[in-house]
C-alpha cells in the first residue's frame, strides 16, 4: 500500500497522456492541474472527482466519511442511468459532528459500515475520505481493512480528500483505488475473444445505450464498463478483457495504461460523439480484438454495420441542411469534444465560428485546424464576460457548452444547448448525433428569441418622455435640498433606471438585447452620480421593488 503523496506523484507521471508527454520535467512534477488561485478558482475538488468517477457503479454503497457538506450538499446530482440496482442513488455519509472531530471519527465510520451492511447488504462499500477526517488523522485504510474482514465484504478506501487537488486528480485517484483494490480480484464465468472494457464512460442520460446495441449486434461483449451502469463484480474481473476503449479522454487514463502494463490489455482513446468518431471507434475495437485473436471476419461485419449506420445518419442529417444554412455555432467544451463534434455539425451545414481549446492537447488542436482550416477561431481561455459580449454582439447564432456557462448565453438571449455531463438528452453514436441536430434546430427556431429581443413598447415611450426631464434632473441634483424637496416619484423612478451605470437597470428598462437605447443610461456617469445623491435622501418603495 502506497502513501497518498506517492500515489499523486505516480499519477502525474502518466506516460500514456499526450499532454503530459509534451511537458518538461519541471512542469510534469507540478502535476497536470493548474495551481488553484484563491478567489479565482472554479471547479470541484479531488473528492468530487473521485465520487463522479465511481458513483455510476450501481450496486455499490458509496459512503462519504466527513462532515455533512461533502455529501449533504452534493448527492443525487448526476444523471447516470442504471439497468439494475438503484443503490448508487442513495446517499451514505458519517455526517461527522464536533465530537467526532475532537475524538476521531474512525469508530463512527466502522459503525456506519456495519449499519449499511445490515440494512442494505451491498456488493461492496466504497469509503470516500474527505478533508476534515484526513486532517485529524482518521485512518480509513485501516478501518476498511478491519470492516472488510469482519463483515466479509469488500470495503474499499477511496483516498482522495478534496484539498489534495482538482477534480481531474480525483478522477485519477479513484482509478488508482480500483487498480489497487478491485481490478483483478474476481474471475468471470467465461471469456470470449470479443470481450472489451470501456473505461471512463459514465452512461449519462443512458447515452451508452445508444451505442451498446451496435456492439451487441457485432457480438462484442462489454466485459466491464468503468463506471457507467457498472457492477462491482464486473470491474473485479475486468482484467480478463481482450482490449479496452478509453472514452472520456483524460479522466481515467491511468486505469487504461496500468491495465495495459499489468495485464497486457491494449487500449485506444476514442469517442462515440459524432459520426466519424463512432465509426472510427468501432473499427478500432474490431481491429484490436482481431489482433488479440478474434476471427478476421469481425472487421467485415463491422464495416458493413458502419456503412449501414452512416448512410442512415447522413440521410437523417440531410434534412437539416436548409434549416442550418448560414447559422453560426460557437462550441465551448474541452478536449476531444472540441473536434469530435465539429465534422457532424459542419456536414449539417452549420458554420463553426469558434471552439474552445482550453483542455485540448496539441493533437486536438491539429485536428481542429484540419477540420476548420488554418483560420479556425480557437478560444484559449475566454472569460464569461467576453463570451457574453461575443454573443451579445451577435457573432454566433447558438452556443453549445457545459451547464456552467449556460446563463452567459441565455441571458444574452442566445440559443444554447448543453453538451456536457449535466444534460438531459443523450447524444451518443449515430442516433445521438441526429438527436443533437434536432435539438439544435428546435433551439434555433424557437419563437421566443424574436420576442425576447424586442423591448417593451411602453419602455421606449417612457424613455422619450423622461428624456425631457434630464436637464431638470441635473439642476435638481446640483441643489440637493431643493432636489429632495421637490422630487416626486416620477423622477426617482428615472434615477433608478440609470442608477450606478451597471446596465442592469438599463436593461430592465429596455429589454435584454437593445444595446443602443440602453447606452445613454449606462454611459452617463455624471447623471448617475447625480441620481445617487437624490437616492440616498429618498428611498421610495418603487425603487427597491425594481432592484
Amino acid at each position, binding site marked *: 500500500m502506497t502513501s497518498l503523496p506517492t500515489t499523486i506523484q505516480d499519477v502525474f507521471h502518466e506516460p500514456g497522456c499526450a499532454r503530459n508527454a509534451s511537458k518538461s520535467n519541471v512542469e510534469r512534477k507540478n502535476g497536470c492541474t493548474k495551481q488553484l488561485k484563491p*478567489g*479565482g478558482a472554479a471547479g470541484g*475538488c479531488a473528492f468530487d472527482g473521485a465520487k463522479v468517477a465511481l458513483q455510476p457503479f450501481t450496486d455499490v454503497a458509496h459512503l462519504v466519511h466527513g462532515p455533512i457538506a461533502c455529501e449533504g450538499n452534493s448527492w443525487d446530482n448526476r444523471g447516470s442511468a442504471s439497468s439494475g440496482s438503484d443503490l448508487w442513488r442513495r446517499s451514505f455519509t458519517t455526517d461527522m459532528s464536533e465530537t467526532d472531530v475532537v475524538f476521531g471519527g474512525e469508530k463512527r465510520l466502522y459503525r456506519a459500515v456495519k449499519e449499511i451492511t445490515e440494512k442494505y447488504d451491498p456488493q461492496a462499500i466504497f469509503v470516500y475520505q474527505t478533508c476534515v477526517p484526513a486532517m485529524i488523522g482518521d485512518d480509513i485504510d485501516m478501518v476498511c481493512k478491519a470492516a472488510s474482514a469482519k463483515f466479509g465484504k469488500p470495503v474499499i478506501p477511496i483516498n482522495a480528500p*478534496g484539498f489534495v487537488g482538482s477534480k481531474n486528480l480525483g478522477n485519477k485517484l479513484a482509478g488508482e483505488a480500483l487498480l489497487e483494490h478491485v481490478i483483478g480480484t474476481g474471475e468471470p464465468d467465461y471469456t470470449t475473444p470479443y470481450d472489451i472494457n470501456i473505461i471512463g464512460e459514465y452512461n449519462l442520460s443512458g447515452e451508452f445505450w445508444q451505442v451498446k446495441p451496435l456492439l451487441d449486434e457485432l457480438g462484442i461483449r462489454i466485459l466491464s464498463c468503468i463506471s457507467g451502469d457498472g457492477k462491482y463484480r464486473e470491474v473485479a474481473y475486468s482484467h480478463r478483457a481482450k482490449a479496452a476503449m478509453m472514452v472520456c479522454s483524460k479522466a481515467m487514463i491511468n486505469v487504461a495504461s496500468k491495465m495495459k502494463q499489468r495485464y497486457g490489455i491494449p487500449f485506444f482513446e476514442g469517442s462515440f460523439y459524432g459520426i466519424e468518431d463512432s465509426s472510427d471507434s468501432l473499427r478500432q475495437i474490431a481491429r484490436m480484438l482481431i489482433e488479440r485473436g478474434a476471427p478476421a471476419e469481425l472487421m467485415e461485419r463491422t464495416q458493413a454495420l458502419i456503412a449501414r449506420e452512416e448512410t442512415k445518419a447522413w440521410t437523417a442529417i440531410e434534412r437539416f441542411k436548409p434549416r442550418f444554412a448560414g447559422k453560426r455555432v460557437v462550441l465551448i467544451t474541452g478536449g476531444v469534444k472540441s473536434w469530435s463534434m465539429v465534422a457532424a455539425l459542419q456536414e449539417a451545414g452549420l458554420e463553426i465560428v469558434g471552439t474552445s481549446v482550453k483542455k485540448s492537447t496539441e493533437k486536438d488542436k491539429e485536428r481542429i485546424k484540419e477540420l476548420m482550416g488554418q483560420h479556425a477561431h480557437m478560444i484559449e481561455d475566454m472569460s464569461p464576460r467576453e463570451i457574453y459580449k461575443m454573443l451579445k454582439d451577435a457573432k454566433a447564432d447558438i452556443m453549445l457548452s457545459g451547464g456552467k456557462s449556460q446563463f452567459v448565453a441565455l441571458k444574452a438571449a442566445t440559443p444554447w444547448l448543453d453538451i456536457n455531463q449535466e444534460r438531459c438528452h443523450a447524444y451518443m453514436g449515430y442516433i445521438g448525433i441526429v438527436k443533437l441536430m434536432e435539438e439544435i434546430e428546435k433551439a434555433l427556431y424557437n419563437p421566443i428569441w424574436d420576442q425576447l429581443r424586442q423591448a417593451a413598447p411602453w419602455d421606449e415611450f417612457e424613455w422619450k418622455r423622461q428624456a425631457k426631464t434630464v436637464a431638470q434632473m441635473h439642476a435638481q441634483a446640483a441643489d440637493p435640498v431643493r432636489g429632495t424637496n421637490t422630487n416626486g416619484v416620477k423622477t426617482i423612478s428615472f434615477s433608478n433606471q440609470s442608477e450606478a451605470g451597471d446596465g442592469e437597470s438599463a*436593461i430592465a428598462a429596455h429589454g435584454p438585447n437593445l444595446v443602443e437605447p440602453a447606452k445613454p443610461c*449606462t454611459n452617463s456617469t455624471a447623471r448617475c452620480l447625480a441620481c445617487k445623491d437624490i437616492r440616498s435622501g429618498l428611498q421610495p418603495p418603487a425603487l427597491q421593488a425594481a*432592484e
Partner: protein
Amino acid sequence: MAIVTASKKACSVNPLKMSQPIGGSFAFMGLRGAMPLLHGPQGCASFGLTLFVRHFNEAVPMQTTAMSEVATVLGGHENLEQAILNIYNRVKPEIIGINSTGVTETNGDDVEAFIRLIRQKHPQLEKLPLVYVSTPDFKDAFQDGWGKTVARMIEVLVAPVDEARPRDGSRVNVLPGCHLTPGDLDELRTIFEDFGLKPSFLPDIAGSLDGHIPGEFTPTTIGGIGVDEIATMGQAAWTIAIGAQMRRAAEIMQARTGTPFRLFGRLCGLIPNDEFIAFLSQISGRSVPSKYRRQRGQLADAMLDAHFHIGGRKLAIGAEPDLLFDLSSFLHEMGAQVTAAVTTTNAPVLQRVRTEDVLIGDLEDLEELARSRDCNLLMSHSHGRQAASRLNVPFLRVGFPMFDRLGAAHLTTVGYRGTRDLIFDIANLIITDRETNHGPTPDTWPSSAVTCRSIRPSRIEQGEKKHG
C-alpha cells in the same frame, strides 16, 4: 408539545441536512454587488454553487480561498489575503462575505485577526466591507448558517443611530428566514407598500435571485439590498423578523439601534396572516386596503373547497425547523395530521410543532416513519423524490433545494394569496393521486366476512385517538 429526539445512527442515509457555510453564503447573496467567499478547499464552494445554480437556474456568484493540503498545514492567512485581493481587483465587489468551513475551523484559523492584518497591509481595502462569520460544517445546519450570517451583517454593517435624527415612521426592517423564496419576499414587499410602509429586506434574495435579466455580465450578485441602505436600517420604526431563526438578528438590531421588533414565527395560514395584516395596519395607522379583505375571502373559500381533500391526510414532512413549523402548522390547521416530522437541527420552535415527536434525522428516517405510520402525503425538498416514488404517495417539493422542477424561486406561500395557492397545489396533488392510484374497483369494499385486513384497524384507532 412535541418531543424532540435525535437519531442514534452512525450513518446518515439520504441526508436532509445541508451544511452551515452555504446557508451563510446564501444570506450574502441577498446583498447587492456581493461576492460570497468560502474559506476552505474549493470543493466546498463548488458543491454549494452547483446546488444554488440547480435550484435557481441562475448564475450564482461564489468564490473560494482554495485551501490546499499544504495551505491547511501552514494556516489560511495567505490564501485569504490572495482571495480578497483577487476578488477586489477582478470583480470590484461592494462587499465580500466570508464563511468558514470544516477545514479552516478544524485548523483554528483566526479569520478576524487575518482580516485586520490584511486591512493594515492593503489600505486600498479600507472602504470595502468584509463580513466574516464562523460556520463550521460539523455543527448546526443550513438554516443556522443563514441566521448567524444575518446577525453578523447587522453587527458589522448597520451604523449607530444618530439620536438627534427622528425615526422614519414609515420605514420597516424585514429580516426573512432562509425558508422564504424571492416570490415570498416580493409578495411581502407589495403588502408593505400597500400600507404605505417602506421595507428594507435583509437579506433581499428577491433582488438577486428572482431570475431577472441583467444588462451585462456581472460577476457579483446582480441585485439585493445595498450596503448603504443596510447602514441606515437603525432609523426604521420597526423590525419584523419572519421565522424563529431570525430572533437573534432582530435582538441584535434592537440592542444596537433601539428599533423594536416583532417576530412572526410563520406567515402561511389564515390566522398568522390575520395577525400580520392587523399589525401592519396598526403600525402604519392605515385601515386594511380592500384588496386584502378580498384576498382573505378568497383564502377562506379555498379552505372551504379544499378541506374535503386535505382533512384527515397523514402528513410526513422533512424540513428545516422554521419551514417545518410553518407548513406543518398550516396543514394541521387544514385538518391534516402531522404524523411524521423529521428535521435537520435542534431549535426551540420544534417543540411547538403540532405532533407527538420530531426527529432530528435524515430522509431514510422519514421514509421509514412514513411507511410504518401509513402516511399519505409527503413533503420535503427535492431529495425526497426517491422516497416518494418508493412509497408511492403524493409528494410536494418544499424548501431548498428544488433542482428537479422549475420555478422554485417564485413558489409563494406567504400572505393570504400565497396560502390560497398552496392550498390548491396540495389539494390538486391529492386529487391526482386519488384518480391515479385509488380509483374504486368492485373489490375495493369487500364484505367483512372475506377479510378484515384491508381495513387496517390500527389506522382507525390512531385517527380516533387524535380526535379524542
